[in-house]
Structure formats: C-alpha cells, structure tokens
C-alpha cells in the first residue's frame, strides 16, 4: 500500500499530545537506538578487531604504551584530586552566597571548559619560557600536565557542585543555618554535595585519559598521544586501533562505577526542580572573600595560561600570517561546529523526550551519557575510518567528508545537549500535554507553539555550547578531516611545534577571544529568551 504525505499527516493528527507523558515501549526502543547509534563507530572498531587485542595485549602493555598508560593514570588521579579540592568549596560558596561580580566571574570561569586543553597547555609552556623556568620544573612534566588538566577539571567540579547546591531546598538551608550558623551550614552542604563533586572530579580525571594535547606539549605524553603518533606519524592503523581499544577498556572500567553512582546523583541534583532553591545570602565577609577567591581562581586557571601568549607578541605581531591561517580554517571550523551542534541538539532532545519523566529511564540515559562522554574520541574516529575503508565509494559523502567530521563530533558531544534538554523538559508541567490532549490540539501544533518556545531558552545555549566544544576538538578532527579541510584548533595543534611563538600565541588568543564571544552570546541568548518567555 502506498503511503502518501496526506496519510502521514493523518497519523500525526491521530497522535494525542498525552503520548509525551505516557509510558510506552517506544521510550525504551528510542533510548536504546539513540545510544547504540552514538556507540556504533566504536562498536564497528571493536568487532573488526575481535581477538587481535586480547592476543596482543601483553605486547602492547609491555611496550611504551603500557608506560604511557600508567603516566596517564597518574596525571588523571592528580588532576581529579586537585579539581575536587578546589572546585568543591568554590562551588559551595557560589551556590550559597551572593557577592559582587559573581555572575561575571562564574561566566569567565566557564571559559576553560570550552577552550581546547592544549591551548591552555601552550599558554603554560610559553609562560614557562618567558619566566625562564627550567624544562623539568613545576610548569612542565607530570605537575605541569596535571595543572593543565585541572584548568578543565576545577570549573567542571565547581559548576556541578553549584548546581547540586542550588538543588537543596530553601527550608533545608534555613534549618541548617538555624541549627549552627554558617560554618554548620557549610559542613552540611559539603557532606550533601560531596558525592556528586567527587564523582565529577573522577569523571574529569577519566576525560584526561583520552586527551593527548597537554601531555604532548608539556613533555609528559600519555596513552592518547601514543595513539595519535601510531596513526598520524607511523601510519599504523591496526596498532592505533588496538591501543584505542585498550584505552577505551580502561576508561570503561573506571567510568562504569562513576556512571552508575553519578547518574542518580545527577538525576536528583540537577534535574529535579520541584523545590525552590534558597536565595543567595549576602554577607559582609563573603562580599570581600568571594570576589577575592574567584579572582584568584580566574588568575590561576585562565589568566596564567593566557599570560603566556602575550610576551611573544611584544617581539612581533604576525597579524597577516595569523589572519591567513584563520581565513584558511575558519569556514571548516564553523561548518564542523554547526553540523555537530545541529545534530547533537536533535539527538539530545530526542533521547530526552524518550526518557521522559521515568526515573529509571532518566538514570539509565544519564549513565549512558556519562559513559559515552568519557570514551576516547579517537576510538569513534578510528571506527569511522574503518567503516569508510570497507564501504563502497558511493558512501563517501557520509563517511569521508566534512559531514563525517560534524557527525562524529555530534555523537561525541550530544550528551551535553541531552542533559540540557532533560533539564528543560523536567521544568515543563505534565498537565500541559494532558490539557492539549483533552482539547484535541494536534501534537505538531503543541510541539511548535508550546514545547519549542518553552525549550528554546535551554536548547539554544546547549547548541552554542556543543558548537564551542566541537570547534575545540582536535582528536576527532585530526583523524577524520579530509585533506586541506582542517579546523583552527587543528592548525594551531599542527603548527605549534615549528611555527614562531608569536604566531602560536596570536592564534591561541584569537581562538580564546572567539570562544569568549560565543560564550557571552550563549549567556545573552539564554537570559533574553527567558525574559521574553
């Protein structure tokens, strides 16, 4: 029987709006399909290399890769500890108290999350040269790499802690305050949010395992760097694939308990909005200490690496060369970011809708998102390469094109969009869909007139964030980009070893400036849309 456009329209009209609030097998099927799609490239690689990893595991671990993996684990542990030690108290202060310039300082502290870690590592490296520190000093090797990774981990723990603190109800905060004053409140809140903060710190540590940049730049190359070298310098795809799978195995073993414990924490701490949070308290002491604490943090994790870019520019400003490099790569960078942000937002929203309000499905989705986000990006990228190698040339537009890069980045970063969408959907009242069902409002009309405008203030910033994260990625782009279609971060990553410091500094500053503008745009969009809706 032929299905016409008219028929499909009729089907949509027949779907009642309350389907959005009802349980059904489509939810589980949708979730499983979405998560499998995101995992597909990695699974392709795993099935392709079946048996070869276990056979060569001993050889791999006995060689340089085993040592590199141990180095990565040590750095991950140090970065996780530093992130929790600094991010937890700072997050509690930001979640409980108001102080001058709080919002601005917090917005600036979000910047390191959106800038490639290797750019901050380059800043540290240039700063070390400027300050004439020795190559094996504090700002290089193990400690330098751990510090560079903590630049990312501290804000991550800080913001998750902040969100968890805001999830505590006003009456609970008041009760703790009445029971024993501010010190008692701080202790109670710290005990309450510690699990979420600790698990986020651990996640930040796990994420460092897959990041090759800082270690390579600061002279402490880890497992992820070994994979890049195997593929890009030694052109040994099989070795890179085996190393990628061993790394992924380690990441999965470390992340599974994190995902298992963190998902319920996230579900209750971040997604529940049924209690009004306590208003931010204003205290004289905090109004002085707060800005001082956050300015110091900002100085350490943003201003310090940025300061490294400036001195080389005093010697010469290679404006023309930098402009050429930016012009050459800007189009690709934007294209990758746009495709990734569009696809990631659609996939994230779809999965959030599938999870709905079911606590079990939400926890399952969150656990899946944490696990997927922690997987090494090189694993998925190598999977795409393998798939392209065994597929007919007619599939090249999907498997060997700039679109492939965008798609791979979307599958890497959609957990961010999904988290935002889950939060947005959680704030909607279930009775809106019930009322629409009773009044016979078509599902598409309800989605267009009610759901979309309601979610826009959440989804637009999510799309911008994914755009920023995707444009900052190097691992996937390095492995997947078609010849001559590199991105700006990739250009910086490629030229940093040979180009003059002034050019590297200028390109890095340009990137950080662009990211800051986009972050401001995301913030402005969210607030103006919230005001108008």
């Amino acid at each position, binding site marked *: 029987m032929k299905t016409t456009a008219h028929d499909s329209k009729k089907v949509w009209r027949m779907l009642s709006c309350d389907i959005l609030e009802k349980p059904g097998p489509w939810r589980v099927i949708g979730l499983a399909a979405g998560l499998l799609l995101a995992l597909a490239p990695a699974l392709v690689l795993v099935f392709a290399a079946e048996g070869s990893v276990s056979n060569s595991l001993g050889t791999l671990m006995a060689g340089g890769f085993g040592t590199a993996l141990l180095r990565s684990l040590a750095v991950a542990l140090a970065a996780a500890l530093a992130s929790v030690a600094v991010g937890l108290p700072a997050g509690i202060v930001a979640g409980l108290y108001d102080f001058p310039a709080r919002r601005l300082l917090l917005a600036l502290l979000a910047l390191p999350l959106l800038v490639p870690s290797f750019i901050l590592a380059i800043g540290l490296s240039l700063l070390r040269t400027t300050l004439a520190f020795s190559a094996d000093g504090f700002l290089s090797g193990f400690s330098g790499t751990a510090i560079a990774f903590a630049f990312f981990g501290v804000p991550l723990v800080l913001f998750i802690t902040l969100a968890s603190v805001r999830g505590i109800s006003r009456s609970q905060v008041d009760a703790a305050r009445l029971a024993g004053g501010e010190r008692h409140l701080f202790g109670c809140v710290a005990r309450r949010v510690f699990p979420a903060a600790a698990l986020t710190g651990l996640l930040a540590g796990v994420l460092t395992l897959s990041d090759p940049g800082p270690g390579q730049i600061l002279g402490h190359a880890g497992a992820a760097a070994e994979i890049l070298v195997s593929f890009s310098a030694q052109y040994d795809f099989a070795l890179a694939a085996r190393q990628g799978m061993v790394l992924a195995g380690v990441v999965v073993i470390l992340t599974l308990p994190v995902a298992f414990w963190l998902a319920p924490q996230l579900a209750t701490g971040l997604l529940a909005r049924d209690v009004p949070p306590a208003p931010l308290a204003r205290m004289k002491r905090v109004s002085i200490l707060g800005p001082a604490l956050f300015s110091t943090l900002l100085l350490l994790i943003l201003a310090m690496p940025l300061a490294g870019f400036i001195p080389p520019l005093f010697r010469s400003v290679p404006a023309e060369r930098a402009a050429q490099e930016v012009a050459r790569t800007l189009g690709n960078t934007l294209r990758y970011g746009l495709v990734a942000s569009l696809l990631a937002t659609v996939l994230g929203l779809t999965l959030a809708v599938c999870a709905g309000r079911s606590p079990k499905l939400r926890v399952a989705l969150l656990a899946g998102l944490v696990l997927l986000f922690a997987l090494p990006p090189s694993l998925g990228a190598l999977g795409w390469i393998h798939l392209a190698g065994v597929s007919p040339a007619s599939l090249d537009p999907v498997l060997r094109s700039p679109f492939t890069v965008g798609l791979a980045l979307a599958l890497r970063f959609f957990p961010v969009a999904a988290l935002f969408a889950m939060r947005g959907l959680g704030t909607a009242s279930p*009775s*809106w869909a019930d009322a629409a*069902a*009773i*009044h016979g409002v078509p599902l598409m009309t309800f989605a267009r007139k009610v759901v979309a405008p*309601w979610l826009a203030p959440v989804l637009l910033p999510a799309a911008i964030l994914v755009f920023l994260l995707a444009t900052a990625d190097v691992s996937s782009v390095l492995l997947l980009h078609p010849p001559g279609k590199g991105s700006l971060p990739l250009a910086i990553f490629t030229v940093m070893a040979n180009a003059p410091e002034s050019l590297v500094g200028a390109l890095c500053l340009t990137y950080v400036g662009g990211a800051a503008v986009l972050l401001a745009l995301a913030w402005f969009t969210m607030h103006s849309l919230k005001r108008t809706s």
Partner: protein
Amino acid sequence: MTPLIQARNLRKAFGAQTVFASVSFEIEAGQHLALLGPSGCGKSTLLRLLAGLDAPDEGQLWIDGQLVSEPGRSLVPPHERRLAMVFQDLALWPTLSAVENVILGMANLKLPRRDRRAQALAALETCQIAALADRKPAGLSVGQQQRVALARALAVKPRLLFLDEPFSGLDLTLKEELLAELKTQAATHATLVLVTHDPGEALALCPHALVLEGGHIVESGWTAKLLKRPVSKTLRAFADSLSRADS
C-alpha cells in the same frame, strides 16, 4: 433515560498499590457532582479515567451510552469525549497569551480563524478577564489565571466540565469570589464534576456528592442530606466543624 456517565467496577493500581477498586456510579446529564475524599484517595485518578487520560485496569466506562474505556484501553480519545477540564495547576500553556490559550484550546472545533478569536474573547469576557487577553500566564495573578483556565474550558461549550481541585492554594476571599462566579457559569453549562477534599466547596457548588475513601465509594447522594447523617470520615469531620462553628 440513559445516564451521561456510567462507571462499572472500575479499578486502578500503580504497581502494587491499588488506588481504588470496584468503583461504580452514574452521573445524569446536567448533574453537578462533587467527588469528595481525603488527599491521595484517588479522586484525581478517577477524574483522569473519566477524561480518557488514563485507562482503568478493570471495569468499563460509558459516556452517553457509548463504551469509552475498557480494561487497559481507552477506546475514545480525550478530545472526542466532548469534555473540558480545569486542572489543579491550571495547565495554562506558558508560552501563549490568555487569548491564545483559549484559541488553541478550541483546536478541535471546526471554526474559521476570525470566529475562533471572537469566541475566545467572548469566553474571556464571560470570565471577566478579557481586559488582560494579551498577557501571558506569568503576567497574571493566580486568580486571573484561574479565570483564563475556566474561560479555556468553557469556550469549547463542553457537555462535561471537570474541575480538579481548582481552588486549592487560594486564599478564602478569592476562593469565595471564584466559587460564586463558577456557580453562575456552571448553572448555564453542562454536567459538572468537581474533585475536592473540601466539603464546603462541594456544598457551595454541587447538589450531589460522592465520597471516595480507602479505595471505595463510601457514600453518595444529595450533598445536604449526606451532611445531615454523614457516614464517611470526610463528611463527619466537616459536619463536626460546622456544628462547632454554629455553637
């Protein structure tokens, strides 16, 4: 004459928790019935079954002689049952203005756009909120939102009007004011089912009442008569408080 609503042996459970069982009752056309009972006794769940938003686990439901729900299945979707509902949280769509809420609520009516707007404005006028037709719910007070929700329900001229605790959380003055208005509106409108845990509201609005306690219908009949010889805890407590107030 066939009753407008016939419920036979309705049962609903959430997991292992049975909300109510063996619930049977009838509602005549034009009757104004209060569904009374303590919090958590299943009043709102029963209303959702009548509205078609949920299906019963056991039992059958007829509206106007037509079987509309049977175990595990809602045979007639909510929008084909010709009913309207004012929800406990009002369920106003926050992205639309008051008049847009009413217009979208008339999605099921086959009306030209201009007529639809005119009818929506008339409904808002009836509920004395037409002056604020272009405001979004967030820009309205709770009482004003209540009026918009009522206008949205009345605009479709339903044969059945369901009110799910529409006055909970309101102060006494506003509640009295809205009750009086609703009484005027309801008198000219269709069959009405009010879900409430406050017998005072029931007494003011509905001549008939049905009391649900412990998952069963404990008593039903004329509200005033039931209050004279109350059997259920809900009505006994209310009757006691009335006599205390009198003394």
